[in-house]
């Protein structure tokens, strides 16, 4: 992917940050008091920060969601009390684009699963940029099934451009793998809490996101197709991605309005990567509150509520159309 908008904007700020810290260092060693200059620069810095990041367009949020420094699934999972990773689909291979296993969340045993992209090029190649193959979705299904049998809540982290669109994935029936994930999450007799932490792209994201409670970070995106994909499908022109992003209603606020997202987790000014520890902590406590609340419900109540929730989604109206039937 060529150039991240947010990273580019941060370059200018980085320069300012360096000057402030230089001045601070000089101030500590030299007799001249420069605290008013430092304060002025800091005020300017805050002002620019607000101007640049105070309100983000949908397209800017797409770039924020793809920011290379944005916390990934493992940043959240490794902040849990304990994590024991489980591997493999038992059929073909272990897909590094999916991480999952048993964990403890404030003492409570859970199963956690997430899409995992890489933090650098080498890791991205190994993890296929967080785009799971069918083997990955079969691992997801297996872990969700174990969770349901053992009565452990399922906590998922959604962060993918979409399911892998390659030859091998088609040969191994990507459609079936995702379809059966959806089935498993529809029938799991335990609380499911899904959090969209980065990019939620299409069916490959939904495969981990049929849940009793869906959380979404403020600057994450979640859409029917990536903006590039949507532009290619509708207009055969991927360069119209920015236009697609503005039409798709893919921000946390839009999706909260539609009833698809239950809770928005706020991010610091400038995005989650500016204070990873705070964002991870805040997100995990929001997840924990949902898990606790849902754990009070019986499996039958959970399944009934989940069914009704997804049964309701969509907009249509009753309209008696003229007798149809074509030629």
């Amino acid at each position: 992917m060529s150039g991240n908008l947010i990273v580019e904007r941060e370059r200018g700020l980085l320069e300012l940050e360096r000057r402030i810290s230089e001045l601070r260092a000089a101030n500590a060693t030299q007799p001249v008091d420069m605290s008013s200059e430092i304060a002025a620069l800091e005020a300017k810095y805050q002002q620019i920060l607000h101007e640049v990041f105070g309100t983000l367009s949908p397209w800017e949020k797409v770039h924020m969601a793809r920011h290379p420094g944005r916390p990934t699934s493992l940043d959240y999972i490794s902040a849990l009390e304990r994590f024991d990773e489980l591997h493999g689909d038992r059929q073909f291979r272990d897909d590094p684009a999916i991480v999952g296993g048993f964990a403890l969340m404030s003492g409570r045993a859970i199963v956690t699963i997430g899409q995992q992209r890489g933090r650098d090029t080498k890791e991205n190649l190994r993890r296929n940029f967080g785009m799971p193959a069918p083997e990955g979705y079969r691992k997801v299904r297996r872990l969700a099934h174990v969770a349901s049998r053992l009565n452990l809540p399922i906590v998922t982290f959604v962060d993918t451009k979409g399911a892998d669109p390659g030859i091998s994935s088609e040969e191994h029936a990507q459609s079936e793998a995702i379809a059966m994930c959806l089935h498993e999450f529809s029938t799991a007799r335990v609380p499911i809490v899904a959090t969209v932490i980065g990019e939620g792209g299409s069916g490959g994201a939904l495969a981990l996101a049929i849940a009793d409670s869906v959380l979404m970070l403020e600057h994450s995106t979640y859409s029917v197709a990536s903006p590039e994909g949507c532009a290619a499908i509708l207009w055969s022109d991927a360069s119209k991605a920015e236009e697609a992003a503005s039409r798709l209603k893919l921000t946390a606020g839009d999706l909260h309005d539609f009833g698809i997202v239950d809770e928005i987790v706020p991010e610091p000014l400038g995005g989650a990567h500016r204070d990873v520890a705070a964002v991870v902590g805040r997100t995990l406590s929001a997840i924990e509150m949902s898990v606790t609340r849902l754990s009070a419900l019986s499996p039958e109540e959970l399944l009934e509520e989940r069914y009704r929730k997804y049964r309701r989604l969509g907009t249509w109206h009753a309209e008696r159309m003229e007798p149809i039937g074509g030629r």
Partner: protein
Amino acid sequence: MMQMPDWLRARRGKDAEGRDAALWTKCPKCGEVLYRRDLAANAFVCPRCAHHFRMSAFDRISSIVDGDFAEIGADIAPGDPLGWSDKKSYPAKLRGDREKSGLSEAVVCGFGQIGGFDVALAVMDFHFRGGTMGTVVGERIALLLEEARKRKVPCIVFTASGGARMEEGMLALMQMAKTTAAVTRFTEDGNFFMTVLTDPTTGGVSASFAFQADVIVAESRAMIGFAGRRVIEQTIRQKLPDQFQTAEFLLEKGAIDMVVDRHALKDTLVRLLEYARGGVLRA
């Protein structure tokens, strides 16, 4: 007694043979120029190269059900949740497709009989918005499965879809969750669910109910896959072989149960319905 819809009556009536008689059409596969009446009489299969033309939902239902067909969910009409507009507004696109295809949406659902078996039937139609799944498709299919569950009858869905409908955004994606929920309740009650994948079946439809069936049948040469051919070619930067993502390819890879020629389709479905009913079939 159910009321036979006008379109079905027209296809069953005396003048059915004269329908479209004036039109010629060209086989996209072998280039043969075909008399449309001959093509319709041959189940929309090219007599020269056996290419299976994409069928309208009306022709499909007419060719599959024994007699009557009682449509349900016909009055569920699409909204415009995103207020979508590009070259045209979404409502204008819908009106255009409605006029061209005679369909009110990309799926027709209802109840009828096949070989004497009561069945719930959903037939998608590629001629309406590329068979894409928006709220109405999801809603009608969920409604059909809920009603079929009450009546305890098998359900057969004919798929033909380019995937989720972009113009309804995430609400379109959520129809994958909605239809999955309905399929799950239906099958967990012990009911038989079968899909017939027709050309093309991709994206959000293939990754939900299409591949959740007890038995998955595909029509000869149908293109079936998750990602579209173009997307894959762009990703891997090379041309894909012709056979890739055909029904025959999926059969070889173990993704579907059988590939059936359209002429043999109804008999095949009836045999499958017999097994699903169970018991002693022959004394």
